[in-house]
């Protein structure tokens, strides 16, 4: 068996700290390399994108559209996460309700985004609430399914303990159920942000007059890949910020109690 020396451990930790930056740099380098090799307008170099990015910010266009999209994202994400968790937990714990709604879930899970979006717009008009509703309908079943799996895997021992000690519903939820669902919630959040972003683009494409989807569609018509990438970067940066400021700390908190 080997000896672990603390010095080595410290060195590794220092390297680990710079890994994220390093990986970004390598990503940029690969991009630059491929772009200069291809030399095609379908893959502009990072510089070109950076310039476009800067101009879009200065012109106020990017902040405006990004803001519109983010607002929709926040609203529809909150609604679908809250509702999805509630329904997912209920379905995971109640066999009869689950048997009843399982079919509906499969249906809503697999109705194409296009269809729900079109129907929402057709029935409720080309208004903001219809757009949000369309996103929620698309995202909700995903959350439900993930949380339902998590609820099924809940530890019976701990649930019994809570019952025996007469924990109230909210107490059980907060202290027993949610911490166990944490990895499922994180998964649903991360892939959920991404999914909503994909759907919101279609929603905006089909019936909104602002937002990233609307803008991207214009760029797409012109085949302006540099602008598309610039807008993408803006969005990724925002998500990355959410990662750093909200999700990573949550991760850390969840790891706090682990060995």
């Amino acid at each position: 068996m080997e000896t672990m020396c603390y010095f080595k451990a410290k060195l590794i930790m220092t390297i680990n700290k710079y890994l994220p930056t390093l990986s970004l740099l390598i990503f940029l380098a690969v991009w630059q390399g491929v772009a200069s090799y291809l030399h095609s307008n379908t893959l502009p170099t990072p510089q070109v994108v950076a310039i476009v990015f800067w101009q879009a910010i200065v012109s106020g266009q990017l902040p405006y559209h990004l803001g519109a999209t983010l607002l929709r994202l926040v609203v529809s994400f909150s609604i679908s996460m809250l509702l999805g968790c509630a329904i997912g937990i209920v379905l995971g714990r109640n066999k009869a309700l689950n048997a009843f709604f399982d079919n509906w879930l499969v249906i809503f899970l697999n109705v194409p985004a296009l269809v729900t979006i079109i129907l929402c717009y057709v029935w409720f008009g080309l208004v903001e609430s219809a757009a949000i509703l369309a996103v929620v309908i698309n995202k909700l079943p995903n959350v439900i399914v993930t949380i339902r799996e998590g609820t099924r895997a809940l530890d019976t021992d701990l649930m019994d303990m809570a019952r025996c000690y007469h924990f109230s519903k909210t107490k059980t939820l907060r202290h027993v159920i949610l911490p166990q669902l944490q990895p499922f919630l994180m998964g649903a959040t991360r892939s959920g942000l991404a999914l909503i972003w994909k759907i919101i683009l279609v929603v905006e494409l089909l019936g909104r007059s602002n937002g990233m989807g609307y803008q991207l569609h214009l760029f797409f018509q012109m085949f302006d890949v540099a602008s598309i990438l610039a807008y993408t970067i803006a969005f990724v940066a925002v998500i990355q910020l959410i990662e750093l400021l909200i999700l990573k700390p949550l991760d850390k908190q969840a790891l706090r109690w682990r060995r």
Partner: protein
Amino acid sequence: EKTTIRIGVQAAGTVEWELSAFPTESADFQIEVHPVATAEAGKIALQSGAVDMIVSDWIWVSSLRAQGEDFTFYPYSSTAGALVVPEKSMIHSLKDLNGKHLGIAGGELDKNWLLLQALAQKEGIYLNKSVEKTFGAPPLISEQLKQNRVDAALTYWHFAAKLEAVGYRQIIDGRGILKGLGIEENVPSLGYVFKQSWASSHSAAVANFFKASSLAKKSLCTDDTAWQKVISLTKVDEAATQTLLRKRYCEGGVEQWGDKEQQAAARIYTLLKTLSNSQLTGKSDTLQAGTFWSNK
């Protein structure tokens, strides 16, 4: 050895009609049809080299050329969108749009919308401010109009014709807008787009293809039996709609394509560049040389 022309065709579009009216045999080319779902899919197909030719607009060609690509354009049709309102609507001219709810197919950078604003501006109306706008996909815009959620719709000619056939009224069409802006020439809106290098190496076949294309159009517009054959391709059941679609399609024929028209196109380009604040056209100040194919 015949030249194979691979062409990206939108399902239910007029190119499909025309191709099916082509003579079955031709001397030096054969056609390979590649169905695509949307205009964007066509552009992707062309750029990725999956097809040799699609139908698209010349502004896009110019902006590609500005980026160093060598695509070029040959006119196909001058049909453009139209502004339609319900039959009993109080709207009879652009002035009546004031304060009304207008549905616009495409988006802010839709050519018709830009030009319509310019036209209204000439009459002292600032449409962008004075109407309530809703942008959306054309089928949704038609539906909005039918549900009375918008008072008027500025939409693509296909959708406008279908609305007209069920009683909606056309206020002005794309050609009318251009005339109002002082451009009398019949400038094509759509055309075949292809690589210049490819066309030069198959110039005879390409020229014959265009000839066949215009013959096919002529036969569709004059010969009822030829038209009967393509009726199923319109995917429309009502006879009235079919007739109107045919009428609009035939009105869009490009008879003249010379320097005059090309200069008019350049004027439109400048107009659109200012109107869209370069967003539609890209950086280039003028229409790129070579945007329009000349077989010389």
